[in-house]
């Protein structure tokens, strides 16, 4: 009797095993080519390749330099060879890629493999994942700018006393843009002077920003422009970048430059990050990954002193108004010419949901939180920082995202932004006054709009404004 039960048990067990095995191989051994910008953000594709193989997907990774992502993708889309299946790109291009039919709508796949879009920060989801009512992308990296500052310097009693004596108010991370200049000036010291009780071995500066064209440099100008109520265009696609708000914002950067490192005009992502975490500047606006790297002893000299808060704003009607630009960011999409769209979507979904917490909380990548489940999980970020700090970090991000200001998402957005950055640069180098530079940029913008078809652009921009309002970004 016992023997028979044993046999049945064994057979059942084997059956169970085979079904599990069969379930594990969801896909019939396909090769999925993934495209991502080169560097640390492509690492997850390498890390999880073995796991994907278990379900029958072999990952082949192609990368391109950050500044050439647009050309590489656009060239492939125009050629339509199906060389890439799942792609990572910047939401800046969503309007164009979705509008030109290069991406596969993901709604039906989302029904099969739920990406939990309800868990994604509302602003990010609405602005960067949907287009024309359809789901086109899954979030991968939630970028938003925050104000970083050296906690040790701002909390130092000596410095606090000095500041109070000079400016007749408490030393604190600047809450308004006017305050920014004062604080930056205060902390700019020459080699040999004292800073927080120590003698400096090299020059120290108050502030820095990204100026390199093609590295989302315009976001550093956008921060003040947006907080003053600025918009890219009005409803008739007339550029508004040269409004008084825009000119003030640009003038501000020109005014703060004496308190920035002398090589600030060559700053891209790497340089700005190093300036802060290698201890050359007191504060800056930066992406969330700066916090992770600032607290990583392998890369940073300021571990434990990375303060983070909302970006500066302006006082309007007695209330503080600030807007945090959301430049860059990354989303995952499936190419319309992919031969294995479902498998490609599967890869995207795993990276966007299942593995996202691990990816955004490690200093090995530059990926940043974008899910409510991320924000509610400071423990995960405590790998290299005390949980209290992680809490502060996540709440700052959340705050900034709540008052985030999106990238321009129209066809031709790459061109508009490139032109803007060229002219911002001319104002930085004092080749043109801020007003002249922005006027010239606005004139170029008008030309671009004309060339792309004003009527069409107006229509798309109107839809854009609508979705921005729905996301709670604009009043």
């Amino acid at each position: 009797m016992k023997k028979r039960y044993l046999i049945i048990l064994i057979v059942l067990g084997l059956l169970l095993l085979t079904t599990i095995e069969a379930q594990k191989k969801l896909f019939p051994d396909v090769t999925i080519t993934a495209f991502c910008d080169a560097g640390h953000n492509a690492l997850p594709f390498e890390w999880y390749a073995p796991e994907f193989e278990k379900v029958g997907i072999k990952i082949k990774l192609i990368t391109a330099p950050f500044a050439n992502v647009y050309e590489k993708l656009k060239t492939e889309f125009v050629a339509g060879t199906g060389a890439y299946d799942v792609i990572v790109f910047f939401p800046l291009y969503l309007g164009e890629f979705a509008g030109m039919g290069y991406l596969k709508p993901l709604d039906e796949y989302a029904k099969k493999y739920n990406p939990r879009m309800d868990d994604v920060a509302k602003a990010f989801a609405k602005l960067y994942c949907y287009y024309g009512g359809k789901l086109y992308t899954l979030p991968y990296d939630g970028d938003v700018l925050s104000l970083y500052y050296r906690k040790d310097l701002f909390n130092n009693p000596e410095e606090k006393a000095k500041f109070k004596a000079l400016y007749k108010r408490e030393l604190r991370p600047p809450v308004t843009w006017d305050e920014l200049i004062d604080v930056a000036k205060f902390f700019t010291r020459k080699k040999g002077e004292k800073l927080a009780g120590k003698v400096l071995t090299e020059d120290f500066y108050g502030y820095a920003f990204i100026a390199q064209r093609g590295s989302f440099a315009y976001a550093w100008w956008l921060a003040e422009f947006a907080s003053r109520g600025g918009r890219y265009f009005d409803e008739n696609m007339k550029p508004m970048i040269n409004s008084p708000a825009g000119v003030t914002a640009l003038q501000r950067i020109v005014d703060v430059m004496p308190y920035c490192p002398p090589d600030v005009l060559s700053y891209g992502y790497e340089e700005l990050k190093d300036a802060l975490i290698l201890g050359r500047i007191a504060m800056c606006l930066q992406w969330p990954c700066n916090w992770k790297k600032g607290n990583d002893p392998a890369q940073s000299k300021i571990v434990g002193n990375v303060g983070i808060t909302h970006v500066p704003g302006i006082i309007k009607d007695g209330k503080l108004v600030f807007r945090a630009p959301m430049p860059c960011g990354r989303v995952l999409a499936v190419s319309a010419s992919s031969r294995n769209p479902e498998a490609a979507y599967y890869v995207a979904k795993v990276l966007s949901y299942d593995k996202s917490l691990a990816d955004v909380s490690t200093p090995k990548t530059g990926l940043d939180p974008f899910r409510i489940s991320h924000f509610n999980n400071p423990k995960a970020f405590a790998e290299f920082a005390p949980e209290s700090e992680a809490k502060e970090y996540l709440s700052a991000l959340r705050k900034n995202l709540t008052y985030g200001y999106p990238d321009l998402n129209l066809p031709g957005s790459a061109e508009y932004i490139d032109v803007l950055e060229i002219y911002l640069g001319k104002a930085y180098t004092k080749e043109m006054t801020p007003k002249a530079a922005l006027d010239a940029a606005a004139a170029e913008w008008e030309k671009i709009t004309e060339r792309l078809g004003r009527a069409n652009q107006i229509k798309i921009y109107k839809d854009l404004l609508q979705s921005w309002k729905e996301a709670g970004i604009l009043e």
Partner: protein
Amino acid sequence: MKEESLNVIVGKKRFARWMTLPPVLILVALVVGPLGFLLYSSFFDWTLTIPAPPKFVWFKNYVEVFKDIRFWNAFKNTVLLMILGIITQSILGLILALLLNREFKLKKVAITILALPIMITPVVIGFNWRIIYHEHFGPLNYIIRLLRLGSGASWIADPKLALISIFIVDTWQWTPFVTLILLAGLQSIPRQVYEASNVDGASSWQIFRRVTLPLLRPMFVLVVLFRTIWIFKIFDPVFILTGGGPGTATETLSLYTYINGFKLWRIGYTSTLAVFQLIIMNIVATIFVRKFMRRGSK
């Protein structure tokens, strides 16, 4: 020339045709397609960032090129690089060639080492100089500060300097090329020439000016020819080092064409820019043939 019988002439012609026609046909085939595309599309307003179809616009693109400040800026940058480059590299190259034209130990080694920069991948040169030019961590500024020659410069970010930085990189890579060609020229001058001049009581400087330089003329022609062609089309180092920046300070013609083609996807306009460059270079080629290549059909 000997008189040739009809048979010989026909045989000659047939052989020539058999030898030359296949490669020439291949070349023509490769050229006809792209050239046709360029000419045809330059008359259309055709952008691939919006779903609109191409629109026939006659010569509108050509007119736009003339009015395009950014085009003239790119043209200016390219011409500046050419003039600066050719003059500097010729002089430097000559000095180096003269230095190498003596007898000394390790001469072969010196020549081999000097030939290296020519062979290195321009992309590699681009990113390598990016590190060297790095304002804070780069060895160049460090050495400048060490030698008290200044406080270092913003080689890539300063719009006034950026083009010079490209020029320096180009000079570093191609002066050895000039040197090698001039060296060959120097080495082909028979000693008797020098000895004869010495006998006539000429000073070194006079020999150099009146004898050496004129004999080197064909080499210089070659040098100017190649440098003109290669600087005009410069792309890789600029793309990697500055991407055309800061602003448009180092935007050369090739880079501007690339941007219009693969960043802005203005196919029609890009073709027009291409036609412009073709015309410019054809004019230059014609001038070259007329003025310098008086020897036979070269």
